[in-house]
């Protein structure tokens, strides 16, 4: 069963204060749990205890985390007055009412293509940012990163930083440890529940829902989704963490296609760092690299890798190793940027002594940007010229046609008049391209081929219509007739809404009869 066992990945941590007194740089005697040397298929997960980093990128990440969480939690609470009888929540996906409310925009289920458009925009945006700045989505904005960061912060507040966490993991189950673990998991669960709780607010009136949730009056579906998202948040951000990025997420695989030699990636500058070795006080920097092998980049890494192994699938480009290394370089009196955002092109150019360059405008970025503009323009145009009065025609299939006593032929149709405006509309229904057609609608007055109907506000009005054609007007087994529905009054923009829908009129008649 057990083959050649791998060298144990050392997770111990000690301050090498005595042997390396110089520059009070903290050194860690560790190997990254996911380092290239120990990578192995079917490896059991080894816990990662990322050390807290300080620096420019860490501060930026906290700021972005805060902004994103505020957007997530606050959005359902933004109100938007749409008049009486209509929801006043700015962003609301109303499944029961079959409407999607987004500020002034109201979308019906059949207009789901707008959501498709948004998703295409989001995908193109992701492509654009990836080709420009590499995996900034992974490093800063991905929910997995944001919530994992939040969970790590909570963990450090309760169990302490990396060294304390490792000590706690090794010690027996004392009351203190049980207490700390219990508090940590309770806090995690609370955050997870709040995450799931906020999610359901997008699908119902938030103030009503929050009251219902706490009084037990909400629907089982609501509690079910809160439970589901509580579980996934707790599992993904608390237990699985880097495994989500490494094993579950398809994006690390796909992103390789988005990147080119000018995409920014977090890079260890081998040319400057090697040969690496511990620095002894008074030693000369000649003949050696700037990397003093203090492994601070390794201990801060939430993904458990060694950035010095080069570009790796596991690296989410969170830039915390940059912060860690910069702090060390500062203490050592060496220039910052041994680990930095860099491009393949510039690494190449530096090795040849050429000046660095970074072009924002490249074929790839221009194509992505133009595609985004194109999709956005298409969506805006379609939204601006959106039909608010639509007609769907469903022909009766059984019987397909009926021959009447006088020889005339009758077809039946179910008409769905879709009125997307909040006012009731008096509409005129007429039949085109069918001279002599006689329309009958149970419960409505019809003059020949024109009828007046009332389309209910913000609803689909269904009407069953019979159309009869005299025998002499029928020449073929199938005719095309067109239903047209038009508003009696003009819209606010002066246009009179009209929609036409051609359909078949079947007769069973052949001209040679």
């Amino acid at each position: 069963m057990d083959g050649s066992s791998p060298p144990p990945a050392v997770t111990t941590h000690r301050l090498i204060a005595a042997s390396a007194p110089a520059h009070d740089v903290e050194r860690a005697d560790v190997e990254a749990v996911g380092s290239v040397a120990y990578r192995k298929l079917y490896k059991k997960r080894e816990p990662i205890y990322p050390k807290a980093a300080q620096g420019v990128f860490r501060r930026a990440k906290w700021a972005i985390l805060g902004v994103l969480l505020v957007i997530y939690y606050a959005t359902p609470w933004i109100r938007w007055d749409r008049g009486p009888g209509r929801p006043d929540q700015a962003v609301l996906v109303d499944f029961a009412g079959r409407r999607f409310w987004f500020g002034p925009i109201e979308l019906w289920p059949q207009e789901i293509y707008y959501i498709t458009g948004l998703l295409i925009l989001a995908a193109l945006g992701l492509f654009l940012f990836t080709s420009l700045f590499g995996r900034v989505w992974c490093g800063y904005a991905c929910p997995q990163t944001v919530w994992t960061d939040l969970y790590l912060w909570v963990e450090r507040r309760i169990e302490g930083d990396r060294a304390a966490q490792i000590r706690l993991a090794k010690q027996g189950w004392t009351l203190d440890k049980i207490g700390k673990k219990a508090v940590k998991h309770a806090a995690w669960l609370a955050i997870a529940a709040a995450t799931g709780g906020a999610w359901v607010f997008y699908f119902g009136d938030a103030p009503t829902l929050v009251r219902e949730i706490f009084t037990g009056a909400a629907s089982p579906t609501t509690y079910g989704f809160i439970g589901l998202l509580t579980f996934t948040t707790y599992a993904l951000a608390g237990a699985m963490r880097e495994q989500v990025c490494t094993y579950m997420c398809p994006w690390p695989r796909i992103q390789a296609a988005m990147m080119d030699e000018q995409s920014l990636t977090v890079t260890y500058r081998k040319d400057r760092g090697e040969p690496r070795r511990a620095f002894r006080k008074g030693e000369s920097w000649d003949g050696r690299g700037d990397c003093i092998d203090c492994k601070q980049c390794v201990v801060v890494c939430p993904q458990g890798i060694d950035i010095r192994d080069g570009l790796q699938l596991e690296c989410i480009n969170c830039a915390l190793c940059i912060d860690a290394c910069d702090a060390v370089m500062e203490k050592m009196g060496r220039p910052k940027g041994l680990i930095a955002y860099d491009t393949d092109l510039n690494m190449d150019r530096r090795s040849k002594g050429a000046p660095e360059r970074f072009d924002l405008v490249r074929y790839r970025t221009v194509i992505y940007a133009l595609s985004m503009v194109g999709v956005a323009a298409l969506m805006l145009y379609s939204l601006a010229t959106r039909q608010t009065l639509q007609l769907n025609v469903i022909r009766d299939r059984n019987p397909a046609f009926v021959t009447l006593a006088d020889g005339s032929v009758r077809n039946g149709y179910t008409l769905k008049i879709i009125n997307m405006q909040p006012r009731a509309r008096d509409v005129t229904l007429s039949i085109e391209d069918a001279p002599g057609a006689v329309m009958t609608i149970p419960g409505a007055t019809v003059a020949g081929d024109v009828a007046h109907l009332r389309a209910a506000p913000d609803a689909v009005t269904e009407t069953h219509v019979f159309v009869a054609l005299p025998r002499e007007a029928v020449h073929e087994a199938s005719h095309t007739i067109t239903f047209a529905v038009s508003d009696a009054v003009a819209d606010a923009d002066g246009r009179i809404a009209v929609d036409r829908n051609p359909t078949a009129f079947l007769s069973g008649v052949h001209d040679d009869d």
Partner: protein
Amino acid sequence: MSEHKKDIDAHSGVATTGHEWDGIKELDNPLPRWWLIIFYATIAFSVVYWVMMPAWPTLTGFTHGVRNYSDRAVVAQELSALKAQRAPEFERLMQVSAEQAEQDPALMNFARAAGKAAFGDNCATCHGAGAQGGKGYPNLNDNVWLWGGTLDDIEHTIRVGIRSTHADARFSQMPAFGKDGLLTEAQVTDAAEYVVKLAGGPAKDAAAVRGATIFGEQCAACHGADGKGDRTQGAPNLTTGLFLKADPAAVASKDWTSLRGSIVAQITTGSGGVMPTWEQRLDPATIRALAIYVHSLGGGEATVDPAAATPAAAATNPTR
């Protein structure tokens, strides 16, 4: 199991199960832990299920479980709840006349929906799912009615049936002219030719002239001198070409060869269809809903019939 020497696979360092097929060995890898956990969870679940739900057969019955759950009881409960929920509308349907119900859009929608469901359960077997009928089974979509097409007529027909066991059943019997020897074979053919002519078909003139005389003597009593039928006796209008006892496809395509054969057969046998009485099987409200549904299929006639397709019949059209 006998003790055997562990066979370690050289490539993976994993022991094999000892099974080998054509040199291919099976590695003895452990089951994935997540899989194993789910497997044990399903076992635990099944134990909970045995306790909660009906599960095991016994000699005299079965274990009922703590919840004493029964799908059958739930369905019965849901059906009675549905019935109770619909009761007020059915009640309202019976409080007004069928005509008044048609004027009330909400009630009309309810009646049509209820009628459609009842039609599918009870009537579609003969009349077809779309009420399109078939050979011998009337099409209920058109405006051709044997016994009348007003709401009251339809409701009455559903209640008592045609040639059924009901005491008030609508009843008429066409003689079997050919079979019983009332007419000779040649006379039947001639009469059929006249009917073809009545319906606007390509009739042979000489035969049709002979047939006209026979029609006047034998058929006009019920079908009328003009062949437009008589609803008091359920005698069909023969001028529409929409023959009930003919293949619907032949009617639609006006296949006169086929239609002529069907007419001859009908004059020979005089067969009449049977529709059962529904009074004992359906409650009055359902029958009313059915009548409203059938009336709304497109051929329903107004109660006072000013523009009747068959004036002769309308003049003598009884309400019942």
